[in-house]
């Protein structure tokens, strides 16, 4: 399998290198779907120029990346293309290793349950086979590396690729069971784009499960581990933030990065839901609706954690998807991260209901984005409503996709406990309805 991973990496690097050298790179780097005000490469270059002049990079309201990223590129600005390719490669390899490990755990668990005879008899066809699971890690890597969204994001040099790499490393460390590294990478991911702090819940749940600590408020071990993990996370967050402070010797970056993420002052159109609402809204409703929209991003953590506390990795997938749909400046790079997980849930395929519809919606919308942008900005014949309509359709498609996977997962778990062919009391076939 390692050979095919290397092959995929080579193909991915070739595709990116060719695109970097072509005239398309400039066009892609301008697309609002691919770069946001947060992660645009142009803005990073601007920040670097300001830094070189001895001015705070955050003066001028153009640059909104974190200090660590600007210092990273301070040293490797000449090799930026390679850095972005490496970031993508790291993400893919980390996901590959993580998924490989996770599959082993899932299979072992299934074996124990099977040996204990706790599965109903008729669920054999739902059980997972090693043959089917063997190809999943490489499929995950392919889904990430060759996804057009990732390629576009990398060619546009959107720093979203770096954030994805950090998140992927965090997932790898969590699955490998290293609490400290996991906390550090989670802190880094939070530091980079704020929203990943909701991944604290799945990471904690996974590690509790791994160490066989019962999740109950009465168990002292639960509290000890939670506070340990929490303090590691908070500690590294504080260290990283202070490091940034010492690098720039000012707290400018806090308002410029996190204030910018939270209060959404830049309403450049993107594939998210924020810009149109806040462009249309009366100014005095703005604070209220910003609160509503931002709470919406993190709100799903609680119900999902309660419902999926036995399945933390699926919870993690759901969380990443929810963040990338509802965050304030989403780009296609964010979407590609959660889409990389889709092969992992290949076994849910038979329970998916709208996959055909949803994939058509997603593909059609991705093609329509540039068309309507052209009509709006260049031809001047359409207007922002046209573009926003597509944004809405695209997001509805994503939400349907995620909820479809959620439903399928729950349904499979239900069948694993109650048997595949459910009978009603009067003997007719029963149907499950999600309401």
């Amino acid at each position, binding site marked *: 399998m390692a050979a095919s991973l290397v092959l995929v990496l080579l193909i991915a690097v070739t595709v990116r290198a060719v695109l970097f050298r072509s005239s398309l790179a400039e066009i892609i780097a301008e697309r609002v779907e691919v770069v946001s005000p947060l992660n645009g490469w142009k803005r990073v270059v601007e920040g670097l120029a300001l830094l070189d002049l001895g001015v705070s990079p955050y003066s001028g309201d153009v640059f909104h990346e974190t200090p660590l990223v600007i210092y990273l590129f301070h040293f490797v600005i000449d090799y930026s293309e390679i850095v972005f390719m490496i970031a993508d490669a790291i993400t893919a390899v980390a996901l590959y290793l993580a998924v490989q490990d996770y599959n082993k755990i899932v299979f072992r668990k299934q074996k124990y349950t099977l040996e204990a005879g706790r599965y109903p008899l008729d669920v054999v066809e739902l059980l997972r086979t090693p043959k089917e699971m063997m190809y999943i890690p490489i499929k995950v890597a392919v889904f990430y590396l060759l996804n057009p969204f990732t390629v576009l994001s990398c060619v546009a040099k959107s720093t979203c690729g770096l954030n994805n790499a950090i998140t992927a490393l965090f997932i790898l460390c969590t699955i490998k069971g290293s609490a400290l590294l996991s906390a550090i990478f989670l802190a880094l991911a939070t530091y980079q784009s704020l929203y990943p702090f909701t991944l604290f819940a799945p990471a904690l749940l996974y590690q509790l499960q791994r160490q066989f600590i019962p999740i109950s408020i009465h168990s002292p071990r639960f509290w000890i581990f939670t506070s340990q993990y929490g303090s590691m996370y908070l500690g590294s967050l504080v260290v990283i933030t202070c490091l940034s402070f010492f690098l720039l010797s000012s707290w400018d970056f806090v308002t410029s990065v996190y204030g910018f993420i939270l209060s959404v002052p830049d309403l450049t159109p993107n594939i998210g839901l924020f810009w149109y609402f806040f462009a249309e809204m009366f100014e005095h409703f703005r604070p209220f609706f910003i609160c509503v929209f931002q709470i919406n991003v993190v709100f799903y953590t609680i119900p999902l954690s309660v419902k999926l506390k036995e399945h933390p990795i699926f919870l993690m997938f759901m969380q990443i998807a929810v963040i990338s749909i509802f965050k304030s400046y989403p780009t296609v790079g964010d979407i590609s991260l959660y889409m990389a997980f889709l092969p992992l849930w290949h076994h849910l395929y038979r329970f998916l*209901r*709208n996959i055909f519809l949803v994939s058509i919606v997603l593909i*059609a919308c991705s093609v329509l984005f540039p068309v309507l942008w052209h*009509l709006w900005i260049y031809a001047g*014949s359409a207007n922002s409503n046209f573009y926003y309509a597509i944004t809405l359709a695209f997001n509805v498609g994503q939400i349907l996709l995620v909820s479809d996977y959620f439903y399928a997962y729950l349904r499979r778990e239900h069948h694993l406990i109650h048997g595949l062919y459910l009978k009603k009391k009067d003997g007719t076939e029963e149907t499950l309805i999600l309401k």
Partner: protein
Amino acid sequence: MGLLSDPNRRRALTNLVTRLNTPLCVMCYIVGITWFLGLAFEPFTLRTYMSENAMGSTMVEEKFVYGDRALSYSREFSGHRKKVGGLPVDWLVKTMKSRGLEVYKQTFSRTLPFPDESKERYMVKGTNVYGILRAPRAPRTESILLSATCSEGSNNNQAVGLLLALASYFRGQVYWAKDIIFLVNEHDLIGMEAWLESYHDVNMTGIQSSPMQGRAGAIQAAVSLELSSDVITSFDVVVEGLNGQLPNLDLVNLFYAFCQKIGMLCTIQGKLQRNDWDTLPGYSHSLNTMLLMVLKQSSGRPQGDHGLFLRYHVEAVTLRGINSFRQYKFDMSTVGKLVEGMFRKLNNLLERFHQSYFFYLLPSLTRFVSIGYYMPAFSFLILILMLRALDLWVQLSNTPHVQDDEEQDPGPSMLSLATPIFICHLTGLALYFLPILSQDMATQHFPVSETEAVVFTAIAIYVAGLALPHNTHRALSGSGTECGWRSLKLLSLLYLAVLLGCTALINFSLGFILAVTMVPMAAFVQPSGPRVLYAFGLVLVSPACTLLLSIYFYHYLLEYPITLLECWQQFLMAISQGILDHHLYGSLVYPLISLFIYPCWLQLWNIVFWK
């Protein structure tokens, strides 16, 4: 959401869709076509109205009485034009200067990718002359433009004469709040493209031109004049621009409002309006007008000099003076009054045209069909593709139980799908690049001119594409499987749906014509049954045949039917013009057809010969 989550209802719906698929598709097609035909029926359309406040409520009084002066200018111009044998630049500059304009000239040159036989030009050199009348009453940030083209031949002298007379008259007025540019461009669209590119300081088509010496403000609106007789009987307004883009409907309304005020006859697509909408001839007349507009728009060619302005966010129309056998004629003073009135109203504009519609079809000058009315017709056609795709999807997801026994690997089937798609697109790339690249080679080996070489290479590649790709999967996996062609068809249908959807958004007419022809065949092709019939049908709906039939139909609608031989010649010319339009002005029709529509059609062709 009940439909999406309740399995029983879903099953019922899926059963309905699969069982009634063919009747549903036929019904959708009929509904789509009927809807479209109904658009020309007057009670179903909206009356045009002026949305722009700045132009609606104000009154202007036209005082232009210098029709004789315009005629004397035009005679003088035509004399100098004959003497110089082209645009009399020096005379124009002198005349404009003496009328008190700021005059500049701009030279340009362009070598066409291959000779244009219909206009007999290859290496084009020319000069544009333009004068700017500075606005006395406002900062010079906005402008309006009046243009008259001066191409080979001796027509359009009167337009230049009127332009000069208007310039000298406008110079004496005090109320101008926008700069007015008077432009005389040589070599019609090529000169216009050169001028527009320099004015906006971009270079998109590789034209060489001298830098622009003087500029006015951002152009808000432009009117292009075409007059070739001293008196006219009516005015024809031309709206279709590059890539089927249309000017804001308010500009057309403005023209119509002034025609009404002055009492001049005005036509669109050369058709007068009739009042008997409730009779069959009346209906067929407005349908005729609308279909002409659809055909012109779908060609993606600028139908007048104004067509290139639209890309730069400048609303523009061409006014074409017609001199027919009618008794009542209008002299230059009346024509001048019309243009003066339009310019005075444009002068009142406070912001860019944005109020009214940009997407519309015009069955007559008083009636329009907006995007909300015509899109459903198109959606019904796309719905057919969706229904078929859904049907195929259901079939595909039900068959795997049978397929499992054959131990079919996903690898080869993927490969056998990807190869035909790849080859189809490769043929498309060849169709796009080769005709221009190989013209030298073709002229060396065959006794043809460059233009013929390009056109015939394109046709040869097009025809060769039919023979090429449909054997690949046999070489790969022995024989085509049932599953294979279904998947290929599913992909092709979705591909076609997305393509047509995008096309219809940019150029509705093109998308609609392609949908009307391709969708029914695309929906019903399969490798079994009457395959010869399918193959014949597919050839009939292929883009080239559609073009041929459209040309024939266009001339039929113009009430000027042509023979098949003439049609074939027109067809060859249309291909060369299409390629030239792409290279000269950046028209998107040729790349769209050759890179996307044609490969998609080839995939469907593949399905017929799958086994």
